[in-house]
């Protein structure tokens, strides 16, 4: 959000003077060149590839450069079912991404386990271990839904502040950017969820 009066800005623009703020410029550059991490798990990955293909072109949004290495990516689209066997690798990949980084949870499986929720090997949602920015429901969500999520993410990035109280997380030295990796236990992952991130509502069960 700019502090400049819009009327003044448009008047100046008509005179050929372009006024902006550091925050706008910074965010504009970042949101139009998001580099996703090339990382698909299951069926939703195919819809992600279809989004990158010629019909639903993700290149129009600046996101066509899928980086294989997490060190060069800003966005991790978790597309597909997250299993407990795969969860430590996903958290490790997230830790290896440099700040600022974003996560889109694509498909019902990545949000909460999806149709495979009754599974001993299925992690009931990737937001148990890493923070998620945008959720896309669907099984699989259409490519247009992924593009809509991309645009939502761009809107979110646009609204990130650089200074002040509500500043963006990657600029705040107290916010963690790496999260502990779960370990394989005898029956389940240990811990089952990261208590700092995953805070579902508690309900008193009256028996």
């Amino acid at each position, binding site marked *: 959000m700019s502090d400049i009066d819009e009327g003044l800005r448009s008047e100046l623009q008509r005179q050929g003077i372009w006024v902006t703020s550091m925050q706008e410029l910074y965010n504009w550059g970042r949101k139009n060149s998001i580099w996703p991490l090339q990382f698909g798990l299951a069926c939703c990955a195919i819809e992600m590839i279809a989004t990158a293909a010629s019909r639903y072109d993700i290149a129009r949004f600046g996101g066509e450069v899928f980086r294989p290495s997490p060190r060069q990516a800003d966005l991790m689209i978790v597309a597909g079912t997250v299993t407990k066997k795969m969860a430590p690798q996903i958290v490790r990949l997230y830790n290896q991404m440099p700040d600022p980084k974003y996560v889109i949870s694509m498909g019902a499986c990545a949000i909460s386990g999806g149709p495979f929720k*009754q599974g001993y090997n299925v992690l009931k949602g990737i937001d148990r271990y890493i923070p998620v920015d945008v959720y896309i429901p669907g099984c699989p969500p259409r490519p247009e839904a992924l593009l809509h999520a991309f645009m939502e993410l761009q809107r979110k990035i646009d609204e990130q502040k650089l200074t002040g109280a509500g500043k963006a997380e990657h600029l705040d030295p107290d916010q963690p950017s790496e999260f502990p990796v779960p370990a394989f236990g*005898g*029956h389940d992952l240990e811990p089952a969820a990261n208590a700092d991130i995953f805070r*579902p509502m508690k309900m008193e069960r009256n028996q």
Partner: protein
Amino acid sequence: MMESLEQIKSQIESAILGAKIDIVPNAGPSQQSSLLIDNGHARKVAKFLRDHPALRFDFCTNATGVDWLERVVTKKVKVKKIVEGTEKEEEETQQEKIPGYLEAVYHLYSIEHKHGPIIIRLRTDDRGEGTRLPSLTPIWRSAEFQEREIFDLYGIRFEGHPDLRRILMWDEFKDYPMRKDYREPDDYEYEPTPHDDVLEKAKQHYAPRPQLDGAENITAQP
């Protein structure tokens, strides 16, 4: 075309002495009955099925495990009873308790003769300590990964398998998930109105169970 199951059974029994083969009938419309082979002669029978010139079952399509819990079967049996001084035959319902076991089922086809399928079954002695079966990987290479999967999910140790370790679950996992008495860990999150089986699961917490047959000795092989 392929001979009937009875003919194949008699061929096997005449070729391999001591083999005990039973026919497990299949009641349904698919008419796919199977041969139950005893564990001692399983490998010899399998090699016979593969190498016999008329049968040539060189293609093992499917190897899978089945878990049969302890069942109670009611049967109507004709029993001679003495009623009012005379012997009569009456029908009585008897209950037979069949102990539980695990099974490995193999579907075999022949590529050379293009016939099939023939289904063979191997049974373990019980569901606890005696879950060992001979591996048929030396006969059909396709059993290699599938027997590892049966070991991973059901807990049947295959003797003679070149590389028996878990394939789908991680190596530190301790349970055999496809068994009928496996209890899932309680990792469901908040459910606004739990009912039916979700509520049942929410009430059960994971309780430690006695481990089966050296399960904790499995380590990751290089």
